[in-house]
């Protein structure tokens, strides 16, 4: 086991996922299996190898700083689970 229940709870919290207590063991077991698989990477010495984030090492393009999108506020607000006066409504964050 390369990961325990506490680790899983901590990471789930960071990822904003609620986990039912009775599912915790299954998660831990499955995640440990995946991490064991991933451990194979350590068989290879990668000192001095450059990281590769993207195929072809694509560099991001720049574009003129101009407005290109039209305002579609009403269209997007329609999709919101809760909204008021054209704003997304969420529970109070600050008291």
């Amino acid at each position, binding site marked *: 086991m390369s*990961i325990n229940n506490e*680790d*899983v709870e901590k*990471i*789930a*919290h*960071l*990822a*904003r*996922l*609620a*986990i*039912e207590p009775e599912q915790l063991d299954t*998660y831990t077991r*499955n*995640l440990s*299996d*995946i*991490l*064991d*698989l*991933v*451990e*194979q*990477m*350590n*068989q*290879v010495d*990668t000192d001095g*190898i*450059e*990281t*590769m*984030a*993207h*195929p*072809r090492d*694509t560099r*991001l*393009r720049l*574009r003129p700083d101009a407005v290109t999108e039209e305002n*579609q506020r009403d*269209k*997007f607000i*329609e*999709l*919101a*689970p*809760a909204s008021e006066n054209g704003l*997304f409504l*969420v*529970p*109070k*964050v600050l008291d």
Partner: protein
Amino acid sequence: MHNKSLRELALGLKNSDFSSVELTQYFLDRIETNKDINAFITVDSDSSLRQAAQADEMLSSNNGQPLTGIPLAQKDIFCTEGMRTSCGSKMLDNFISPYDATVIRKFRQAGSITLGKTNMDEFAMGSSNETSFYGRVLNPWDKERVPGGSSGGSAAAVAARLAPAATGTDTGGSIRQPASFCGITGLKPSYGRVSRYGMIAFASSLDQGGPMTRSAEDAAIILQTMSGFDPRDSTSIDIEVPDFSAGLENELKGLKIGLPVEFFNEDLDPAIASITTDALREYEKLGAKLVDISLPNSHLSVPCYYVLAPAEASSNLSRFDGARYGYRTAEYDDLLDMYKKTRAEGFGEEVKRRIIIGAYALSAGYYDAYYLKAQKIRRLISDDFTRAFEKCDVIAGPTAPGTAFRFGENSDDPVAMYLNDIYTISVNLAGLPGMSIPAGINNKLPVGLQLIGQYFDEEKLLNVAHRYQQVTDWHTQSPEGF
């Protein structure tokens, strides 16, 4: 009608042998009759028939393009304006897309008809289509078996002739593996060839959309419409799009096909190995030369992928928080509670597993050991291909280690499921184009041959696939009853 190629359908429309409305209705009827396959998540016949009527007008004024009036199935990962775009998830079950993905926009401009949105593994995470919120898709070759995934709905739809062609997306094998399991032709283009704008992101540095068709000739036509630079996709590559159909007939004399020794070892199912060998013999008859090559780090592709893809996914899927669109839990105490319950209820098990793995690999203390290590391995895997292509023009091997498996066979063991993509993943890591074409049948189930090309050389891949399909008939075989 349902066995006609895209070119034959276009000709039939042009000669008024049938109208687009008739053609579209014909396929809508087939979808309805074969509902048990569960290949589609959403079908809107009224909208399809309206589009078809418009296409008929375009055709009658001779303004048609190769796909005008032809109905196509779109994977439910592509945002489609005014239509539910669920990505196979409860999280987006109520999401009516306010815009079109670039791919969808291009098909609309070409005058093709959206026949429906195809079923898929939730957020494209899976190799069996069993993780979809909308239920499993049946493999038309054997309804007790999976169609493969994640583009399982598209593969099953094309195999069962419920659509003339479809789109899929491929992050680690999600076009090629289901193509192999369902006996169709699937092409994952080079990274950067097809716009990712409006294609719901799983792992942004690996995802590519591509055609799922019955032949390489059809794939060339679909890819032609999908391809091209898109300023709305920051990793789209501004490179000329060739005429993919132009080189299909080129001779293969002198073509060098590389065989990775690592793909043909004792782990490969002997039946798959023998079918692959037979296919390679056909290529020799066509004048190609077989050369041994080595991809020494290919055994690390699955471990490397299962760090990078979940890491990118955990970041991409953070947008699903119940605040702006999609699912929101019914009851919650505060914002944190809303996030946690929304995500726990809205995502399925496999998606949650990958989010947690990704968040772990990116967390403080583990970032170097997992994420950076995997990015270095990715470089080694990519360099292996660069060296291999000094010796050959294309690489060939199996698409998947086996044929379609039974439902539930791998669902309790994520690692066993992941190994399905052992031959396909390295291609995504390197960003190369890859294809799967039907090459044989084992125990009444189709087997695919994988072809891997050099960067932006989809033309060569299609040529190599097409020549094989001219001398064999595996690609014309359909499952019994379809």
